[in-house]
């Protein structure tokens, strides 16, 4: 048991090392574009890590996590645009000023995503199976159409902000420095996930996924456990959305669309459901395919679909599962 644990840890560290090495190598070679790609992989990986807490460990197949990604993005965009105009975001019930400080923006993005996750989770977790998938999808689509039809922050066109938000002591415009920020947050989220999933709470969450009736019979209410996991998951994805907005200095309703929800799911499934670093590997492969195959053919997503099909059918443990040759984590 200890051996497989160490092996998992080794693989997790190898994935992160590969990501960092890619970014640092590209930086030294003066290839800023590849650094940005690695940053995107780290951000998508973070979103996948967030979803994995609900989907992988909790068995909550949410098809609406774009809602949290988009909210994290919009909070960032809105705060940044108000910071540049100096107008408050709102003055009721209390004044919220704009901000271009990442350290101020992240907690706001996570708080907003967490609150929305609380509402969506509280309602959707009363259902299960395909209904849960549909209800989460419906909530995210509601927000998507709201963003499209809300002209104040760009509506369908999205919202640009021209200056990337700042971080004390760093130049966030330098691709490698922004990568360092994103990769650090990814590492923090991974440690957080590792700790939480091994805790009492994690034990209960994973038990509820496997056998809800048994979990109730030992005195644990799956609903409260799942809702907590759903909110934590939404907060992590919200943070990823904030970073993604800052990467592009642009947010648009696309961040809220079901297409985005599907992509985050693909990261998790590709890399390995319920694997700590699975979503990071999944996101990295996704971006690699997007840029290698995407350069060859516009139909690269057909190949992605084929890969996904093969993984789901023959390697349900995902890419990490293939390497460790085990089905999934307990």
């Amino acid at each position, binding site marked *: *048991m200890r051996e497989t644990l160490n092996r998992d840890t080794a693989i997790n560290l190898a994935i992160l090392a590969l990501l960092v090495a890619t970014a640092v190598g590209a930086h030294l070679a003066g290839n800023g574009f590849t650094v940005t790609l690695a940053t995107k992989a780290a951000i998508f990986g973070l979103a996948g890590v967030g979803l994995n807490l609900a989907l992988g460990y909790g068995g909550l197949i949410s098809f609406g996590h774009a809602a949290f990604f988009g909210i994290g993005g919009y909070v960032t965009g809105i705060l940044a645009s108000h910071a540049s105009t100096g107008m408050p975001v709102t003055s009721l019930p209390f004044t919220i000023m704009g901000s271009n400080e990442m350290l101020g923006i992240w907690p706001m993005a996570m708080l907003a995503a967490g609150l929305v996750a609380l509402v969506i989770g509280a309602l959707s977790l009363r259902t299960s199976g395909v209904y849960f998938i549909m209800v989460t999808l419906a909530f995210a689509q509601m927000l998507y159409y709201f963003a499209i039809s809300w002209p104040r922050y760009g509506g369908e066109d999205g919202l640009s902000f021209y200056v990337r938000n700042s971080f004390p002591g760093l130049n966030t415009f330098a691709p490698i420095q922004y990568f360092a920020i994103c990769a650090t947050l990814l590492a923090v989220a991974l440690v957080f996930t590792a*700790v*939480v999933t*091994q*805790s*009492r*709470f*994690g*034990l*209960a969450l*994973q*038990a509820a996924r*496997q*056998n809800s*009736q*048994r*979990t*109730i*019979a*030992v*005195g*644990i*209410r799956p609903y409260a*456990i799942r809702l*907590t996991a759903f909110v934590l998951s939404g907060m992590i994805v919200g943070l990823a959305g904030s970073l993604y907005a800052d990467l592009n200095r642009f947010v648009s309703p696309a961040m809220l669309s079901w297409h985005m929800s599907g992509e985050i799911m693909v990261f998790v499934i590709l890399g390995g459901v319920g694997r700590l670093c699975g979503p990071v590997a999944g996101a990295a492969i996704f971006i690699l395919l997007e840029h290698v195959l995407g350069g060859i053919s516009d139909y690269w997503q057909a190949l992605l679909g084929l890969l996904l099909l093969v993984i789901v059918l023959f390697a349900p443990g995902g890419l990490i599962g293939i390497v460790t040759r085990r089905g*999934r*984590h*307990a």
Partner: protein
Amino acid sequence: MPEPKLNEPILEIRGLRKSFGALVATDDVSLDLRPGEIHALIGPNGAGKSTLIKQIVGEIRPDAGSIRFEGQVIDTLDAAARARLGLARSFQVSSVIPDFTVLQNVMLAVAGASGAVFRFHLPALADRKLTEPALFHIEQAGLAGRHLVPAATLSHGERRKLEIAMALALRPRAFLLDEPMAGMGLEGGRQLTGILAELRNEAPILLVEHDMDAVFALADRISVLVYGRIIATGSVAEIRANPEVRRSYLGEEA
């Protein structure tokens, strides 16, 4: 009444009624589980034993009637709350967490009983408040040395023992065991009978069982459920001699 508290039933079921459409699954059932006893509930298939158990544990709501547990009316409590009061249940079909080890399964029950599940920091496997009681109950249930085995790979009999270890971890005030002998071989059944005989020292047992040898060997009292009604309650000898019981149930076996 010299010791009123001691003789008061742990579990007191009064006038329980449940119907599914035209089918009356539980028909005015009253039943007591007294301290220290093994009370067997027998009856032919379809008599409504499982439906009755589900109402006691809080999985389904009765149409009428009331259940008291240690003097407290528990009608409005959900299944998780009843479990935390010490109403420990085993399932007809073994129900464990398959990907967890034996130890993790029992730790889950210890955590559930403690009521403190929202702990996010400490690794559960390093939490001696979970592991120590869990290991103790694993040994108690006869699974010593098997704690690192994944539950999915346990034999049928071992899984039964794991369920008992999980029930013990709830610091039970009463056991509800739904056909623990089902699917056990002769030797396994004998062993389990021995374990159940010891379990009664922990808490009284309401035992739903088809295996008549086990019932007659273990039970202090027997209630016979037929078509949702309890047609007789009494000692082993009384039930064996009861003509109605012989006709409607035991007669089939003889």
